[in-house]
């Protein structure tokens, strides 16, 4: 028995002294390997008497287990130390810059998506139409008779005349799509029409190309009170705050009665805040679709009625997102796009917000 105690002391000391995994394994083999000292002792069990066996068997087993456990424990320590040593050399400067090239989406496109979302909630689909229009769709069908003074208000771009002397125009508003829609489908109609529009005008507050969103509702019952409600609902949703609005009469050839809508605003420093304040800002034109327009599209004004509205997308984008100058909108300057653009991961919606 004293021998076993000696063996235990000897190997426990060697295990503890092993300073690498190879050394530890050598100790393990010397003690517990096939020809190890403990294993050799175990072989002698066969030659022992039953009484001797009764004592030595458990003692040897216990010794074997104890040494194996010490080896495992030491192995864990040595492996940990080896990993730590290896990791000590595996360093990387975490301050190094990484590549992150994500572009942005244009604010005008963002705002048109926001509008589509808000109006979709009121049941409007998005319709589109050509930028190059004929006189009929851009003017005549919209109740601008030839030579009507309202045509003076639109400084229109014309294309060069064709062989017959007819001149196409760049649409001065998105309203021609109203005509195309009413002529091609039966009411009820609820559409918005976002798109490019053109007028022969260029200064600080006008660009020769700009964006409009037109709205059109045609059915048998929609009246001007709905128009007012629809646009009031829109304004607060768009500016994401309570917006006080005002309706006042105006004139457009294609609506009767016609109105303009103003919103309250205030100026705080250079910033314009829409919603409340002591001033009114004109924001859009609207009205009940003129009976002549309905007739021009083959709809009976005694049966069908509805409203239309149109607003400037670029201006609404500027007001909401604080862009001071319209002319930068279409210049494609990377710094401007980075500052005013929107993340491509953003999807305007009513559940999580517009932007």
């Amino acid at each position, binding site marked *: 028995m004293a021998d076993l105690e000696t063996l235990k002391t000897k190997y426990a000391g060697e295990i503890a002294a092993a300073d690498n995994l190879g050394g530890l394994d050598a100790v393990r083999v010397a003690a517990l390997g096939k020809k190890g000292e403990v294993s050799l002792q175990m072989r002698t069990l066969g030659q022992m008497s039953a009484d001797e066996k009764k004592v030595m068997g458990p003692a040897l087993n216990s010794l074997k287990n104890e040494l194996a456990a010490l080896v495992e424990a030491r192995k864990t320590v040595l492996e940990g130390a080896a990993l730590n040593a290896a990791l000590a050399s595996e360093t990387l400067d975490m301050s190094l810059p990484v590549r992150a090239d994500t572009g942005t989406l244009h604010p005008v496109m963002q705002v048109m998506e926001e509008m589509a979302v808000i109006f979709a909630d009121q049941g409007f*689909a998005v319709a589109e139409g050509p930028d190059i229009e004929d006189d009929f769709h851009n003017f005549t069908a919209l109740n601008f008779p030839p030579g009507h003074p309202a045509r003076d208000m639109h400084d229109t771009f014309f294309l*060069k005349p064709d062989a017959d002397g007819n001149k196409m125009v760049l649409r001065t508003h998105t309203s021609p799509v109203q005509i195309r829609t009413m002529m091609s489908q039966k009411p009820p109609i609820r559409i918005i029409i976002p798109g490019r529009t053109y007028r022969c005008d260029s200064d600080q507050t006008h660009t020769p190309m700009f964006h409009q969103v037109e709205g059109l509702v045609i059915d048998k019952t929609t009246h001007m009170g709905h128009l007012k409600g629809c646009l009031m609902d829109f304004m607060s949703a768009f500016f994401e705050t309570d917006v006080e609005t005002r309706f006042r009469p105006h004139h457009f050839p294609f609506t009767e009665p016609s109105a303009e809508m103003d919103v309250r605003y205030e100026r705080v420093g250079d910033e314009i805040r829409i919603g409340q304040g002591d001033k009114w800002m004109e924001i859009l034109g609207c009205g009940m679709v003129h009976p002549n327009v309905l007739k021009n599209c083959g709809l009976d004004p005694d049966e069908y009625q509805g409203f239309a509205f149109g607003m400037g997308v670029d201006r609404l984008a500027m007001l909401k997102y604080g862009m001071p100058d319209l002319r930068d909108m279409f210049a494609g300057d990377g710094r401007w796009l980075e500052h005013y653009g929107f993340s491509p991961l953003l999807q305007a919606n009513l559940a999580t917000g517009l932007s």
Partner: protein
Amino acid sequence: MKFTLSWLKEHLKTDASTSEVVEAMTLAGLEVEGVENPAEKLSAFSIAKVVSAEKHPDADRLKVCQVETRDGLKQIVCGAPNARAGMTVAFAPLGAFIPGLDFSLDKKPRKIRGVESSGMMCSSKELEMGDDHDGIMDLDDSFEMGMSLADALGLNDPVIDFEVTPNRPDWLGVDNIARDLSATGLGTWVTPAVKPVKGSFPCPVTIETDAPDACPVFAGRVIRGIKNGPSPEWLQTRLKAIGLRPISALVDITNLISYDRARPLHVYDVTKLSGTIRARLGNGETFEALDDKQYTCSTDMCVIADDARVLGLGGVMGGTYSGVTADTTDVFIESAYFDPMRTRRTGRATGITSDAKYRFERGVDTGFVLGGLEMATGLVLDLCGGEASDVCVAGEVPAAPAPIEFDPALNKRLTGFDLSDKDMIKTLEDLGFGVKTGETWMVTVPSHRRDCTMGADLVEEIARIHGLHNMVAESLPVLQEAKREQSDRPGNNNARREPLATDLQNKNRRARRALAGQGLSEAVTWSFVAQAHAELFGGGDVSLQLDNPISPELSTMRPTALIHLLLAGQRSADKGYPGAALFEAGPTYQTPKPDGQSPTIAGMRRVETVRHWQGNSAPDALSAKADAVSALKAMGAKVDNLQIAQPSGSYWHPGRSGRLQMGPKNILADFGELHPAVLKAMGIEGRVCAFEIWPGNIPPARKKGKSKGALVLSDLMPVHRDFAFIVPEATPADKLIRAVKGADKALISDVTLFDVYQGKGVEPGYKSLALDVTLSPKAETLTDKDIESVSTKIIAQAGKMGAVLRG
């Protein structure tokens, strides 16, 4: 249109303040653009009396005046030659801002040649009230000392400027503004009826109208023995207040009536007339108009002529020759009606703008042709004396506007406004309409309201006067009635069974986001480009050129969205910001027809090296391919199945550009490097990679329904085998990959190109392409024999297109 508050109050009895008038106008559709009270500018100035004016002891031209002011007796040194004791003057106290001099007086008295001076006496020029600077203003002695100057001169009178919408030419007369405001309840309309003046002798001038379309009615009369001096102070003040320059009593009277009643008139000097005066069409004659310019009268223009010459362009501008002067004693007054369209065309052709043209082209009140003439007669007799002839009229006053059959229920139907019949009738009558009630009403339209032709117009009048701000707002009800079979059309949403956005709109949304994710920023640029640039990109057809471009840089509809992106990138580089990476989703134009416009997505990256510690990089043609592919994938195109071809546009680099197509007739995208010669012609420095995508060409997803079906996953391990093939240098890698994929479509699930090699071990003119082929067994583990068989097929298939297994 400008008018003053006091002018309005001659027609509207009201105690309303300026802001109440402005509010009422705005809510009735008269959109106020500005209000200015000249008194505000003059608030510092008051009436003072000069007590004494002695010569300055040290200056011959200066006087030392003792002036009694509202601030007490002041000593003022004055250089005006007309300063004298007893004079009534305009006094400016110390510190006052002098508008005509654009500076403020010192706040402390100042010594002028040793004599202290406390304030200033002003000339009319210094107060911006005239051009007179020879002396100080010599005011009416009846003005009391201490009065505010603005009050004394009748200038405490706000000027209101508002937008006249084209449907309401009658608002170009103050009288009709007052009538609308009285209907809103702001006051009582009190314009007195015009009193006709009986002629005392037959009209000595014969008039005719030879062009009844252009000038259906031409009325006039002679007034003889008049004296045409300056008009009285009240008239001058009124005209000056709205920015008109007083000329002479006769001219001022016509201007007054033009702004008071929207009724233009013209006066001729009778001694300059010879023979019959007639309205007729032009004959190519020339004449000198009152703006001292020569005009040629085309056959489209209506002229007023006598037997000898053209006297004026009817309704546009009179001529110098027959105009009235200070010596005129006998005048002929013309009151006519000129056709709006012709007047507009004449104005456009001649470039003349005048108050008369502005009114006639919008349409003047046909019912006030004679009224205007009588009103002018009365004023001329009052202000210039003389004796009036009988009135003569050529032609006929156009018929009154047709009455409107009006269903009073239409008001509620269109506006939701629930008004009583009584309220509606009152509003219409206040505005000058006549109402005969019944099941439907017969509404007569006043001659100045030809804009009203149907029921909706009357509804607008009623709603306008009752105020849209009082209308009850209702949210739109949920659309219930749309039918399912119409659901593929915009506007027919059927309670959200299908999305409101179209397939193409959604494709665009996703592609734009994919491209921004690739590092490109979205721009929006002009739809028109320079003609030369359009031609470089295969566009510029005459049918797409603007007739009236705003500048040559923006003169032709673009064949591609790339042009302005390239120019923007160059501008950025010029400013010190290289490496622009931009895209745009927008229209391009092939023909001027409605279907001649196609939606495209175009993008570009400037080839400018970005330095980075992980290795410098610069985009190349294949970066553009990666961009295009990411967008196409986002739009649901089956990118792996697309063919690669050569783009047809001559603006692509011939060796570094490609086309992604489903077939030769269905092109989804072009990409690559742009042709250096094209870039050079545009002034673009360096190289640029670009792409153009046509989302409309991507076929819509065929699958109906949302279910993705059950996923079947094999438990069997895939097997990878590598092959290296030698192919001629010019062989597209894609061709080999397709060939290998096609060797066993059931077993080969993927082929990846992992190396392209040229150099030692490969003959010049050839390249080695190394492929990792993934074999995915479906039923049972592959045996060596199976693998051997597939390998043989792969090598054979590659061999068919000239690829040899690398030894």
